[in-house]
């Protein structure tokens, strides 16, 4: 095998501990088969930001020299497996350091594998993943992406399930037996051993041909030579905003043209303009200033500026006027206000209804800690349901 490189793509902070557990697990499981390995996070993603995509790597090799050869470049040029711990990352990976938008499968080598934790269908996922020049396997580990915060870990077995899935889609890395042994040693839990095995057994894989996927070019930018950069570490400010869509009424702020929120969200607000009370609280409390003010005083969430925190839904005094909906249910970033204008009340209400209903299918979401004891209660309930 020489070397095997695995990339873990995840939501910063929310899945930091999870990604670390997985990378550690990979190195320990490979040791069971006499190989050595290393695990590291991409330095440019550190310090991580809540929800902003980040990367960690595990590289495993037969010997020291092979390992060194693969590490001579900090971020591997290609990987055998990429693991996306949140399926909305299929839209791309946009670090908070300015690297542009990287397709989630960018590093996956020919006939390599992209493993995604998701409840979506393979077809839906393929639609949002950028096209790759080479064929690769898409493996789906069924389940809700696991999110928790910096201090309290949500131990829903996603860590060991990913290891079980890896042993199936990348048998040259390690066997299921090695994973089981490692899980027993490292986590001391028979339940977790069983979870790893079940993930191995139930992993679904589908081949993705080079022509399949999102045909869009991912956002990138031109790196200027030093002669063309302004001296004194100076960059021009963002211009002032003006009326809504350039008109006289309403307001649309100018925005940083180079740093859009292509992939920092796993949820987005759906605004029901027919029930909106125009109170302005969503706009006022948005840390990202993502709302455009329409001529009639409505607030149109500009998805290019929304990082999906959900504060707007929380501060909205009208129940259902703003609903946070899973990003997987959207294929484009257009204006909801313009949709509302174009479709009329009935058409728009149907659209909103579809989104809100579909969101319910994703179950209760928690992007981190809600209250003490929450994870324990939820996990106990989930395990009861599973039985």
């Amino acid at each position, binding site marked *: 095998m020489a070397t095997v490189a695995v990339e873990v793509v995840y939501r910063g902070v929310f899945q930091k501990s999870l990604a670390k557990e997985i990378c550690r697990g990979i190195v320990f499981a490979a040791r069971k088969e006499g190989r050595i390995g290393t695990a590291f996070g991409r330095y440019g993603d550190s310090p991580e930001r809540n929800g902003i995509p980040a990367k960690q790597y595990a590289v495993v090799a037969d010997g020291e020299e092979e390992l060194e050869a693969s590490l001579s470049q900090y971020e591997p040029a290609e990987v055998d497996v990429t693991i996306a711990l949140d399926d909305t990352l299929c839209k791309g990976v946009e670090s908070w350091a300015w690297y542009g938008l990287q397709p989630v499968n960018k590093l996956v080598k020919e006939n390599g594998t992209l493993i995604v934790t998701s409840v979506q269908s393979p077809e839906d996922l393929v639609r949002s993943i950028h096209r790759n020049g080479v064929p690769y396997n898409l493996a789906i580990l069924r389940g809700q992406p696991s999110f928790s915060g910096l201090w309290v870990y949500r131990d829903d077995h996603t860590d060991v399930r990913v290891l079980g899935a890896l042993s199936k889609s990348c048998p040259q890395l390690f066997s299921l037996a090695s994973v089981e042994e490692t899980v027993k040693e490292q986590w001391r839990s028979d339940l977790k051993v069983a979870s790893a095995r079940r993930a191995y057994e139930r992993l679904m894989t589908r081949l993705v041909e080079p022509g399949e996927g999102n045909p869009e070019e991912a956002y990138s930018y031109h790196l200027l030579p030093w002669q063309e*950069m302004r001296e004194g570490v*100076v960059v021009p400010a963002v211009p002032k905003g003006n009326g809504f869509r350039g008109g006289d009424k309403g307001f649309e702020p100018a925005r940083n043209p180079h740093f859009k929120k292509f992939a920092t969200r796993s949820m987005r607000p759906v605004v029901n303009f027919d029930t909106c009370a125009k109170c302005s609280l969503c706009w006022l409390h948005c840390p990202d200033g993502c709302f455009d003010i329409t001529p009639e005083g409505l607030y149109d969430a500009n998805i290019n500026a929304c990082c999906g925190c959900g504060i707007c839904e929380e501060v909205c005094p009208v129940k259902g006027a703003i609903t946070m909906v899973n990003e997987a249910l959207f294929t484009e970033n257009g204006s909801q206000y313009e949709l509302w204008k174009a479709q009329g009340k009935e058409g728009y209400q149907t659209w909103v209804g579809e989104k809100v209903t579909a969101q319910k299918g994703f179950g209760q979401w928690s992007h981190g800690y809600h209250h003490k004891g929450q994870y324990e209660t939820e996990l106990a309930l989930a395990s009861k349901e599973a039985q």
Partner: protein
Amino acid sequence: MTTLPALGGIQVERDELISGSEAIARACVLADVDVITAYPIRPYDTVMQYVARLIANGELDCEFIVADSEHSQFEMVKHASAVGARVFVGSSGVGWFYAFEAITVTAGLRLPVVAMVGNRALDDPGAFGVEHNDALAVRDLGWLLTWVDTAQEALDTALIAWRVAEDPRVFLPCAISADGAFLTHSQQIVKVPGKKLVQQFIPPYNRGNLVLHPDNPITIAPQVNEDWLMEIRKQTDEAMRRAKGVLAEAYQEFGDIFGRRRDPFIEEYETDDAELVLVGMGTLAMPVKVAVRKLREQGQKVGFIRVKWFRPFPTQELQQSLSRFKAVGVVDRDFSMGSPSYGGVLFNEIRSALYPLPQRPAVVGFIAGLGGREIRVPDVSNMIDMTRKTVEEGRTDQQTHWIGVRE
């Protein structure tokens, strides 16, 4: 307390008996500096004492802020410079080091802050006397760095400093080093030029589209990842390279306007037929020159070269000059513990500058005059002897000698 003679309205040159520090304070008046910040530490603080009196007496119109620390002191002028104000600041020894974070970002931001360093030994132990290690610490950061020898040169160099630092081709900060006590506290006759002539020499500071003002909305120094920083460093490197030419231009015009013509980068003394020279910086020039004269009376072909600008380093000038001699003794009023040959900073820089030459003189290093200890004429004679002997005997075992240290 004596009252200083009025200066502001004077348009003609006049002779005055002033110290190096006072000469630089006068330069602040002549250059119409806008913001000056102070914090006390010996010996540089003498300049701020003069500045304060000039302001109190209405000679100097500027914002004068006594800061809570050197760090704040240097940060303040950095920010004042960013909005387009001409600034002056200074420090000594560990005070300069306390400001070091501000000092390094000032160069990174390409802000033409002019600072006086009253050279002082670094703590511990606390000591007031001269050593060059304080100012030398900025040598890698993008500061223009010069050593002056006399009060006249201090005044003249300060005027040149603002002109060159604020030149848009350069936009780099400049440190003027003056040996503590020997220059900061000694009075000499200085020709103080008229303000009109100075205005002719130093144009107003115009930061153009880099100025921080609501009429020019910009963001300065956003966080940068590895994709950009090397290009930003390269810009500073190019500015430092351009500074060499801008300095030469300034010295030429300085001579035209004020009549005092000097070589910008090095001063040669009695080198025409010399076989052996000493090289050094700052006020050690005086005892060395005296010794050179004495030795020449005895028939020895010796001379002296004073390095004036340390950054940008006068590489070509020193290559051309020093390749003429058999041997070079470099006198460092600094130390660089554990460096090549355990030599001083200037010694190793000169050796490095000479390395590409096909014919290189022998180079011997001396550590002398640390902590304010005087370098006296016999010390100089001793160093010249040792340099000669080293060459004659072809000794290579020891290249650095501590002079005057008790054993």
